């Protein structure tokens, strides 16, 4: 079944619009803290984000997931306020603190009315620069993290993501997708204070404020409030580059006895945002499996009915992201579905994408880039990402600007390199005995290493 054609007589699409880069006021404080402020009038709101470089990439040796636990513990209070008091202060400013660790950063974020932005900036700065990490708070973080891990481990999608990251990144810290049980059990207020001093440092931190705010006022305010924040101890060592993916196919099984369907993740080590092939690969991924009108969805969902939502993505991380396809399929069609995934991956490198299909993908990616910058929270998150890559705010819209020039030749070349099924890693989570049979036609099947 082919997707239905559009009705006759529709007017043609208008020309694609430009996506202007936001204008960012930039400053670096004497203590090394970087400040970026974007004025965007409209709704009377402001988003505040503090980004401390490090994250899981800087986890101490043997304690994977420390950054996640530290991020959670930052909500538990400061030297001047308890966690409850901090939450109440922020609520009074119309905001709520969210904290998280990513591959490259510990991030604090809150958004509220622009008139109260001063309070939000002060509270986030206090949470990051003077955490109290109290014993009862750390005990709470530990208990909740253990519960979350137990819940996550019942989820085949989590098991697949964890096994895939471990196999792709090996000893590189990006191999961690969640804190290990031993890390959770081992944290104490004392250990977290040591981690906080190493990871949360002004010279490794970016403050982004986006919204209906006055950049001059904010920069002055921040200078006054944060100038006293001094680093102590030494920063964590830089993470090494991950090892290149092997030049052959690997098939790994995570046994989940009795499962009635299987989760498959297919892919390899990918690129950073500044890799010359990042943009052609992004467009290739959209054509292949990144959007609802992609080849993967047409084939596996619309034509064959093997799965509802196969999806492909190409992530950008400073020491290389991943290219991956994920799908959940019925047990009986694991081999049939994987066969089609490989076919669509290899077709991208074997034949040119026609101009009509390319243009649809370009418009879709331009639209998505626009949507990502539509909200203040989205804008501040994207700015944080370019900063973590060591790029400037203008790079925020670099992909959107490059799109009109990305043609079939570049897309095919990137696909040959990054989407070749012969060099793909396959992680399958489900009933082990059945999976070993279904995967046998594609190569040697191994058990995923146990944790």
């Amino acid at each position: 079944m082919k997707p239905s054609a559009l009705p006759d007589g529709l007017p043609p699409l208008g020309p694609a619009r430009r996506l202007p880069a936001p204008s960012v006021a930039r400053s670096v404080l004497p203590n090394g803290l970087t400040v970026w402020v974007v004025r965007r009038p409209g709704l009377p709101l402001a988003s505040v984000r503090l980004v401390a470089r490090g994250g899981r990439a800087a986890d101490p040796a043997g304690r994977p997931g420390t950054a996640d636990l530290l991020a959670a513990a930052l909500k538990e209070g400061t030297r001047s306020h308890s966690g409850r008091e901090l939450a109440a202060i922020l609520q009074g400013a119309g905001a709520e603190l969210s904290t998280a660790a990513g591959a490259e950063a510990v991030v604090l974020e809150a958004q509220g009315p622009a008139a109260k932005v001063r309070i939000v900036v002060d509270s986030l700065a206090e949470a990051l620069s003077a955490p109290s990490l109290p014993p009862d708070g750390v005990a709470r973080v530990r208990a909740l993290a253990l519960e979350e891990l137990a819940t996550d481990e019942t989820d085949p999608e989590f098991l697949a993501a964890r096994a895939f990251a471990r196999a792709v990144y090996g000893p590189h810290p990006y191999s961690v997708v969640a804190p290990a049980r031993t890390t959770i059990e081992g944290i104490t207020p004392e250990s977290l204070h040591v981690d906080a001093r190493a990871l949360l440092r002004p010279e490794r931190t970016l403050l982004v404020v986006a919204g209906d705010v006055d950049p001059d006022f904010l920069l002055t305010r921040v200078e006054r409030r944060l100038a006293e924040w001094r680093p102590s101890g030494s920063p964590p060592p830089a993470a090494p580059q991950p090892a290149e993916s092997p030049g052959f196919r690997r098939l790994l099984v995570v046994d989940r006895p009795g499962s009635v369907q299987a989760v498959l993740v297919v892919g390899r080590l990918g690129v950073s945002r500044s890799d010359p092939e990042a943009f052609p690969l992004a467009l290739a991924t959209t054509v292949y499996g990144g959007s609802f009108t992609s080849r993967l969805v047409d084939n596996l969902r619309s034509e064959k009915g093997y799965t509802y939502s196969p999806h492909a993505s190409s992530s950008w991380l400073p020491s290389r992201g991943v290219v991956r396809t994920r799908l959940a399929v019925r047990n009986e069609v694991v081999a049939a579905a994987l066969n089609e995934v490989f076919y669509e991956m290899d077709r991208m490198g074997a034949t040119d994408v026609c101009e009509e299909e390319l243009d649809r993908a370009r418009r879709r990616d331009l639209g998505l880039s626009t949507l990502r910058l539509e909200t203040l929270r989205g804008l501040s998150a994207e700015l944080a990402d370019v900063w973590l890559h060591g790029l400037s705010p203008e790079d925020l819209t670099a992909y959107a600007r490059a799109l009109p020039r990305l043609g079939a030749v570049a897309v095919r070349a990137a696909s040959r390199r990054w989407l070749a099924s012969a060099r793909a890693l396959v992680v399958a989570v489900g009933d082990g005995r059945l999976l070993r049979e279904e995967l046998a036609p594609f190569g040697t099947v191994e058990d995923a290493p146990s944790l």
Partner: protein
Amino acid sequence: MNPFQGGLWYDGTTLFLTKLAYRRGVSYEAVLSALDDEVRRVAQEGVPEAELARARTKVVSSYLCALESRLERSLEVAQATSFDGIPDAVNALPSRVEAVTSEDLARAAAGWLRAEQRAVVVKVPPARRPGGPA
């Protein structure tokens, strides 16, 4: 120690939904009873002005944040038109929230959040299999 993680949703005029994840080893009866205590407290005592002021600010702020996305904004306008008959009602919500009093909250809690009108679903994780994921 607070065993709760979760949040509250007000879903149109039909559902008031509370979702809570609680620690293993805590009984759901204990969780429900703690929730009942909080509802009873609001119904009997209302909410102190300082707490109410913070909550008003947060509700208005979250509402404005939701209007940022064009898709969300169009949904809010659609909802305002269906419930209030005029799209402009989207602009009136902040002042309506600012006007809410402690007595209003006590009345709403006593009138709507009644144990005999609710359904409770408790979902527990499957038993761990020997040799399966820990």
